[in-house]
């Protein structure tokens, strides 16, 4: 079941079209929203939250219309914005419980839940410190805590690892993975950092110029077309490319002693062809395995 559905959505800022005839479904689980800067990722999130009125098209989040049910949608959504944000003059507990009260929680429930969420986000020890004194990593965590406090069913994480050191980034990604693994919260992560998406998400939506250019599960997107095999030779063997081409196999030299071979559909015994080709040019095969595409390949291919 999709948590959000969008059909032919167009969002314009004056004369600039930020989202152009976009149609997509955000499935349950953890979904990554990828795209270069200016692709329309943040605009899409803001439209789903009801901050921007679409020029045309329709959209629903949990079956609620984005054009006129923004308040009801925000009741069930948590947003972790990209930029630093806090309410001045408050410590972490006050800030998070205040965010809960703003979402309609009774004060006592909000306070209890604030302690719980801060503990969960790893800020238990620093909960009585003023948020203004927090480090960048802690500020990212408190943004996540305030997004989770009212028990949303979907959270939008806009560049969640911005400004974090490697250790902090690892912890944040683990936290995101843990939240989506709970299966009570769906997560939509917007990022231009491919390893972050690769580590946390089950599905990916790639955007460019306000349009979806790729969408699917990680597994499906990584699958290659036809039979593709990555072959490791003992040493670099340049004649192999031409030799394999003579045998009807397109071959690319990846790097050093690695070659990617693309066999025509219906090839019976690719291994035999590899060994014969190597023998013909006097090369030695060290190993081979079915090739998969990295998220970087998928992304680069999508935005080309």
């Amino acid at each position, binding site marked *: 079941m999709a948590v959000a559905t969008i059909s032919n959505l167009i969002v314009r*800022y*004056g*004369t*600039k079209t930020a989202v152009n005839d976009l149609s997509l479904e955000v499935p349950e689980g953890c979904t990554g929203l990828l795209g270069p800067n200016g692709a329309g990722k943040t605009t899409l999130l*803001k439209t789903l*939250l009801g*901050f*921007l009125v679409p020029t045309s098209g329709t959209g629903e989040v949990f079956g609620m219309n984005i054009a006129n049910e923004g*308040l*009801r949608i*925000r*009741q069930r*959504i*948590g*947003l972790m*914005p990209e*930029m*630093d*944000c*806090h*309410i*001045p*003059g*408050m410590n972490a507990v006050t800030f998070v419980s*205040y*965010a809960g*009260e*703003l*979402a*309609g*929680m*009774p004060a006592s*429930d909000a306070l209890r*839940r604030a302690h*719980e969420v801060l503990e*969960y986000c790893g800020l238990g020890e620093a909960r009585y410190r003023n948020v*203004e004194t927090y480090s960048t990593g802690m500020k990212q965590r408190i943004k996540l805590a*305030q*997004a*989770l*406090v*009212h*028990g949303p069913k979907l959270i939008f994480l806009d560049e969640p690892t911005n400004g974090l050191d490697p250790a902090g980034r690892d912890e944040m990604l683990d936290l995101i993975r*843990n*939240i989506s693994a*709970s299966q*009570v*919260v769906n997560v939509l992560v917007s990022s231009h950092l491919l390893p972050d998406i690769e580590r946390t998400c089950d599905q990916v939506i790639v955007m460019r110029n306000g349009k979806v250019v790729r969408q699917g599960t990680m597994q499906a997107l990584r699958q290659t077309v036809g039979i593709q095999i990555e072959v490791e030779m003992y040493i670099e063997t340049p004649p192999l490319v031409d030799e394999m081409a003579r045998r009807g196999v397109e071959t690319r030299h990846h790097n050093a002693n690695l070659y990617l071979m693309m066999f025509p559909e219906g090839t019976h015994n690719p291994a035999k062809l590899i060994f014969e080709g190597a023998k013909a040019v006097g090369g030695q095969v060290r190993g081979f395995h079915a090739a998969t595409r990295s998220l970087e390949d998928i992304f680069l291919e999508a935005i080309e």
Partner: protein
Amino acid sequence: MDFDLPKQEPAPPSNAPSPIADLSYRTYEGELKTRSLRWWVISMAVMRLLKKSVGFWINAGVIVLIYLIAGLQLYLTGNLGSRVNGALGIDEQTKYASTFFQVSGNTGLMVFIICLTVGAGSIAADNKANALMVYLSKPLTKGDYLLGKWAGIFMTLFLVNFCPAITLYLYCLTSYISQGFLKNEPMLIFKVFGACLVPAIIHASLLVGCSAWSKSPRAAYIFYAGLYFLSTIASGIMFGVIYRGDMQSGGHILNYSLGGVINGLCQSIYGVQTVFPGGKLPMPSLPLMLTLAIIFVAVGVAAARAKINAVEVVKG
């Protein structure tokens, strides 16, 4: 001696899952209140932040002191007798209203400073800390947010004025009821209430506008203080240039400033004429003062409403 200590289990590694604490994510399934109360949560937060403000407590203390002095003044004149009061120029019919009006004028500066303390940072600090995204990503509208901020400033200013004023009123009621307090001025309680509302409404409305358009509390502070004092100076210069200091014919010009409108409205509410060495000044025009006050309120609120947005849209 037996040195064979009992064998101890090795301590679990620090990253081992705790056997007693469930650290997995749990959602909230409890009660959620209706949206109509959320502006109240914001206004309470505005007022709660004042608890630690030394400036607020000092100014509030000065206001209480001014009311205490007024009470003492009433106590002393109350014991002098009507003949002596008449000799001092004190009108028995409007003695209490005059006192309250005088006090509202004396506390004006303190109320103004408190309004800067409470209100300058109300929205500007949120702008600086990007807090609008936190507010507006929750299920509330920008109207809820604005009403909450406005009400936080308004209630603070109103209460800081009204609490000592009503105490003074109750003192007068209990002490001077036999001397015709209620008979002479039966509507005074409503006048006190109205006169406390006026500065609170005008300051709160204009200040949310200034604060919304400022990137930092300091900028809002300077902008609003500048507006207040420059309007006072400008009306003073106009009075000097056009009427050459003639209070009788040009005194009304002094009401054409921010502080002047507040003072003029309070004077109209209490119905007290200002006395100066040349005689009594004419009352300020109530319709004009009311129109100016409504313009101030509308401009302030409209300016704030125009600026508060979850998404800053640059058209082009």
